[in-house]
């Protein structure tokens, strides 16, 4: 009797755990649902660019304001305006400003950002546009929306491709030293090793003012 009770309890425990461990469904139903839920990366990137990123650019922080704050209170600058998806010292900022083109190089445009007290020169990347600066600085994408990091990184690759295909070609053709330009773009700064003399902007919007 005691043995029977032992086996009975073990069976009940096994069934209880089993019931709460697995569930069964028709594969066709599940496949149909996941295919509609699966994110189409190129479509997602395009929608993100048009409907989220571009409308949000008017909220970008003035580069001059950011620089001034970084010089006086870097802690506040990073905690208030810095964005990052992971932990660490690297933070991303979406900045805007106006500046005078000092030099047009093969890989970037050196720009004298106006209205800064110390004549800050920044570079705008025109050839090698890579990394996650724009995606992360936007603060508009949630990692949990993606099944895997590969898809998530594809978004950055897609954004960078749009910049290379749509933002830069015309700008690169027309730009010349001495031009005044208006820019919005993303920058990456290291909180621990802050270097304001080597800022590179990944552009999202560029306008030559002449």
């Amino acid at each position, binding site marked *: 009797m005691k043995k029977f009770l032992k086996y009975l309890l073990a069976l009940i425990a096994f069934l209880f*755990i089993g019931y*709460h*461990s*697995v*569930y*069964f*469904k*028709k*594969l*066709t*139903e*599940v496949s149909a649902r996941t295919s509609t839920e699966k994110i189409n990366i190129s479509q997602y990137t395009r929608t993100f660019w048009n409907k989220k990123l571009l409308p949000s650019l008017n909220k970008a922080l003035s580069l001059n304001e950011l620089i001034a704050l970084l010089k006086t209170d870097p802690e506040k600058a990073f905690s208030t305006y810095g964005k990052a998806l992971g932990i660490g010292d690297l933070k991303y900022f979406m900045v805007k400003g106006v500046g005078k083109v000092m030099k047009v190089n093969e890989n970037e445009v050196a720009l004298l950002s106006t209205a800064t007290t110390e004549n800050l020169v920044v570079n705008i990347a025109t050839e090698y546009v890579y990394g996650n600066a724009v995606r992360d600085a936007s603060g508009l994408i949630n*990692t*949990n929306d*993606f*099944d*895997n*990091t*590969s898809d998530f990184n594809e978004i950055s690759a897609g954004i960078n491709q749009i910049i290379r295909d749509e933002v830069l070609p015309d700008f690169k053709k027309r730009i010349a030293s001495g031009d005044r330009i208006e820019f919005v773009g993303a920058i990456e700064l290291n909180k621990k090793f802050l270097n304001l003399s080597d800022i590179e902007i990944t552009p999202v919007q560029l306008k030559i003012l002449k």
Partner: protein
Amino acid sequence: MDLKLYKPFFIKFQSLIALFILCLLISLISDKFLTVSNGWNVMRQISVNICISVGMTLVVLTAGIDLSVGSVLALCGALTAGLLKNGLAFPQADLFIGFTILGAMLVGVLAGTFLGAFNGWAITKFKVPAFIATLAMLTIARGLTLLYTQGFPISGLGDDFAYLGTGWFLSIPVPVWISGIVVLLAVILTTKTRLGRYIYAIGGNESASRLSGINISRVKIIVYAISGALAAIGGLIVTSRLDSAQPNAGSSYELDSIAAVVIGGTSLSGGKGTILGTVLGAIIIGVLNNGLVLLNVSPFWQQVVKGAVILLAVIIDKSNSKND
């Protein structure tokens, strides 16, 4: 004052004294060390190593070694994440088996137990040296992880699963609870059960244990199975903390766990050591890692320092054994 009188005291509490000195030194140099948040941070970080090291202690007590724990951790973490995320599909039967968090975790721990038991079986059945058998499993499990994940992380496992690695319960991080329960059970196992006494006996003198009627193979298989299961639990915590199963997770974790065991005073020749000693060893390693990071020591130097500490621990242990 005759210092010789205090020698047994110093030998008995050498790990504790080392930890105290380490904490004192780091807190003198860095004001961020002795803070509550950093304390919990260290505890959360070492909870995985404690789980693995407890299993490793049992193995080392039998005069064995388990080099496969890091890879087993990765495989079990990947398996759990994969089942939780994708379930199992059987196209011919038009059947999909989905797994709840409980189900996926159970499969992960069972897989770890099985791999550990397989190690034990290979070691006892074919008399393969533990070093070789578990080294082979290290490679097999890592390969299986890469095959299963196709080299990509499996992420987006949900907030409920993330609670295991990042959540708090009664103001204490959940991983600390898990490692605490593991330690408690292991202490009971080693001090209050027959299996515990067998483990020490086998490590102390295997031939004598066999002659006294202990089923050596059975005990060893159980010990390696426990080590595998605890590596799997470590895998669950790591996967949950990162919210993703990384194919290269757990690399060199076996070295950290062996270091914790050795620093904790467990003899690599078996039969001597305690679970609490290992916990202390894991805390020393954790505090050392944390301190070196807070002191901005280069990661390359961190490895050198860690290696030197392990070497020092073994030298001290050897010299103590000689004096006994």
